[in-house]
């Protein structure tokens, strides 16, 4: 699960100063998104689910 250190690193990478915001609420939101992302990663996808047309040689 994403923790406070990860959040701080992500913020630096995106040029955001987190001191202006409510850190616990942002962390809780990002952790919720992470949980949902795990549900997404469990889906067995097919080539036609890719965002671009399937590439063939």
């Amino acid at each position, binding site marked *: 699960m994403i923790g406070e250190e990860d959040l701080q690193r992500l913020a630096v990478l995106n040029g*955001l100063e987190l001191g202006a915001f409510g850190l616990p609420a942002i962390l809780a*939101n990002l952790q919720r998104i992470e949980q949902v992302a795990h549900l997404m990663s469990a889906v067995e996808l097919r080539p036609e689910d890719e965002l671009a047309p399937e590439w063939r040689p």
Partner: protein
Amino acid sequence: MSVADAIAAIRARDPAINAFTAITADRALARERSLDPALPLAGVPFAVKNLFDVEGMPTLAGSKINRDLPAARADAPVIRRLEQAGAILVGTLNMDEYAYGFSTENTHYGPTRNPGNPQHVAGGSSGGSAAAVAAGLVPLALGTDTNGSIRVPASFCGVWGLKPTFGRLDRTGVFPFANSLDHVGPLAATLDVLASAYDAMQDGEPVRTVRGIDGLRIARAVGYFEENAEPEVCALVGAAAEKLGVRRTIEIPEAARARGAAFIITASEGGQLHLPNLRKRPQDFDPMIVDRLVAGALVPAAWYLQAQRVRRWFYRKVMALFEHVDVILAPATPRPAQRIGQEMFSIRGREMPARPSAGLLTQPISCIGLPVVCAPVGKMDGLPVGMQIIAAPWREDHCFRVARAIESS
């Protein structure tokens, strides 16, 4: 009703509801003087969610930050199309800041109140649009729907709403929220006005005169759509289906995952859109949305891209259903509008966060851009609830055929 009467009614009655953020009286009165009475929407007053460009006004999108933007140099094309059909713009309407909410509890402009009970929310994010129509201040309003922002307030306020197929109506001059999910659509007091307004804005076959459900294969959604709605709401949808003679049920598979995909895509696209202002002036955002915007701006690309793939995967599954049915009926909201300020509500005994959960039943559908008419079907605890009439992409005519049958049943 003359434009002058409509404006007088808005000035007298809107303060109790707080649907309007501006009244365009001079423009409306000038427009009325040059009106062609033969036009299909001749003299119909309408108002727009304040994320539509209106010439001479900054496009607020419910924010404080956008007050600093230059005034729009032209109306959004959908406004021009409605005016070409004779409708008259009388004002702009309240919304959740940057459309990121289902309740229109806007910190900068105050909450919009539900005309059915002013202690309750109007829904959102097109809450001003639905409330203005439900209060009888205008018969027609424009809104936008990314995850349910037309259908949730239409359901909560008991008015008709249309979220057309993704890409059907022109979004030029409309302030975005999540670009790959945003839709424009009308809300109206009657189905006639809803259909006429949609016809004025679209380029396909007109729907105003379509009638009859003979030959349509209609089913009522069960599974996820029953498990996430109060029994009384399901009973109202069941009764509406019964009146149409619909006995077939259908399960839309993987709706929960589709909602998850919409949730991630919205967070990421919305967060990225506002990242420059989150860096420069974080204190000027509505506290109701700012934490979600920041979290969304930090979403890793892998999560976002996987959500987009899941969206396509879900689309294929639902398109397979449309081989066997033409229209699917489902509740629009899990229950009626919560009180203003209410944090939690109950769905089948489960305590859920009220604001995000209002979109439980709309998000899976807009995730893949299907057309939906939201129809008022009754009341629970004295407040309205609506039903989604869902069709395959580009088949708004099917939605309207069923809506007409419900209207006359």
